[in-house]
């Protein structure tokens, strides 16, 4: 099931914070575009002045250079009682695909998010299930468990957290994790990535959390803290692009989600930001 990269929706702004007047000059798949607040909502146009399709979902303005289909659903976004958090954009000098893959990884928690999402000696990644759900054309990892010293802003002390990961779009991922104040429910944390070029991306994290205690600023900054810990990793991976050649890197059983993601990208023909042959 291949789809042209130009036919995907991509995030380009926070809907509630539209750049006024002059707008935001940015890139999408290497093409210059401008995002601005129009009279009847956000407008996106190319350098030649061609108006691009726009949709608003999950706190963000999304656009498309080609012919868009439906944006993937996040049903939890509409559930009452959740607080929706626009975390803001962070630019990273890496392939958009590397940003997504890192988001799917748990084995780095003890070393990169030390004493927050993981800590030695609790480094083991237990078996979990991964499959490509053909009916929705998404990658799903389930029954992922990890010991976390401070799983969320709302967490007090360490808990074993359960995760589900979902890749519904080549540059977007949604994770579901145990909600510390609502153990029967899942907190939703999404990573929406705007590919500027194959080696540069703007990452727009977004969350739908059960948390009545934290201020909005606290929730935003908790997630910014986590993502900025990842940024210094992402900017130091060699090569910048995500290798799809299996010989280039050495995955283990802990990397099943990433293996499935890479396979799914290949199958979809999504290679923007990928390195196909070993350098």
């Amino acid at each position: 099931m291949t789809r042209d990269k130009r036919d995907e929706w991509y995030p380009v702004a926070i809907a509630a914070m539209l750049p006024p007047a002059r707008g935001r000059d940015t890139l999408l798949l290497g093409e210059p575009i401008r995002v601005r607040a129009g009279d009847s909502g956000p407008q996106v146009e190319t350098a030649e002045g061609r108006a691009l399709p726009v949709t608003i979902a999950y706190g963000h303005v999304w656009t498309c250079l080609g012919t868009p289909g439906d944006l993937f659903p996040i049903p939890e976004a509409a559930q009452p009682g959740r607080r929706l958090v626009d975390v803001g954009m962070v630019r990273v000098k890496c392939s958009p695909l590397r940003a997504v893959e890192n988001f799917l990884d748990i084995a780095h928690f003890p070393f990169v998010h030390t004493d927050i999402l993981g800590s030695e000696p609790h480094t083991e990644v237990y078996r979990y299930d991964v499959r490509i759900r053909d009916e929705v054309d998404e990658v799903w990892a389930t029954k992922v468990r990890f010991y976390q010293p401070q799983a969320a802003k709302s967490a007090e002390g360490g808990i074993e957290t359960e995760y589900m990961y979902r890749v519904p779009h080549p540059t977007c991922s949604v994770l579901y994790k145990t909600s510390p104040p609502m153990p029967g429910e899942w907190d939703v944390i999404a990573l929406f990535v705007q590919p500027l070029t194959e080696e540069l991306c703007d990452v727009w994290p977004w969350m739908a959390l059960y948390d009545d205690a934290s201020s909005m600023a606290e929730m935003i900054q908790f997630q910014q803290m986590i993502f900025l810990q990842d940024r210094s990793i992402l900017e130091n991976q060699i090569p910048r692009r995500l290798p799809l050649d299996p010989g280039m890197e050495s995955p283990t059983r802990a990397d099943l989600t990433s293996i499935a993601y890479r396979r799914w990208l290949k199958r979809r023909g999504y290679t923007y930001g990928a390195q196909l042959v070993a350098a």
Partner: protein
Amino acid sequence: MILYDYVLSADCYAVRLLAALTGQRLETRAVDFYPGAAEKGAAFRAINPAGTLPVLVDGEVTLAEPAAILMYLATGTSFAAEGASAQEWLARSRHFAAALGGARQHDMLEVPGDIDALRAEGSLWLRILEAALFEAGEEGCGFLLGDTPTIADIAIFPHVALAPDGGVELGAWPRIRLWMRRLRALPGFIEMPGIHRLHDLKPEPGPDYGGAAA
């Protein structure tokens, strides 16, 4: 003491770091600097009319200049430093912040700026720091003002350690690397995003390593 704080701010981190190193408790209040620009809003300007972070409030005292906050917290501790040399480094920390911090904001948060000029200016200040650390080392000192760390080190360190966020790499600065390592190894040291834990200091987990999660 209340610190109006932004988690990604190097200057806010300097305050949190000094408090941690000196065993002082801060009550942090997160201010939505980004993306919300809350420090420019009316509510925050009632606390600091200048609309900047960090701000430290301790009873009747309100301080909003990073160097002044560090001096305040360091009073009566081994991190206190007075005199012209201390002032020189505290003032220089503003140049580090403008250049390296400016490059960081440009590369990370899409803040406009002349990135080549910011990085060049940042490298100039790193050269000055590298030379100063060499000379301090020749005098038997591991830190900028002596053989123990002071607010001079704390004021400069965050901007230097976060320089790679703005595309200024630290591989070619041996004295700076060793100085940062000494600071990161101090008892009570805390990290911020972009400055990883010195995992070397933690012993290798034992035979039961990775065993059943708690």
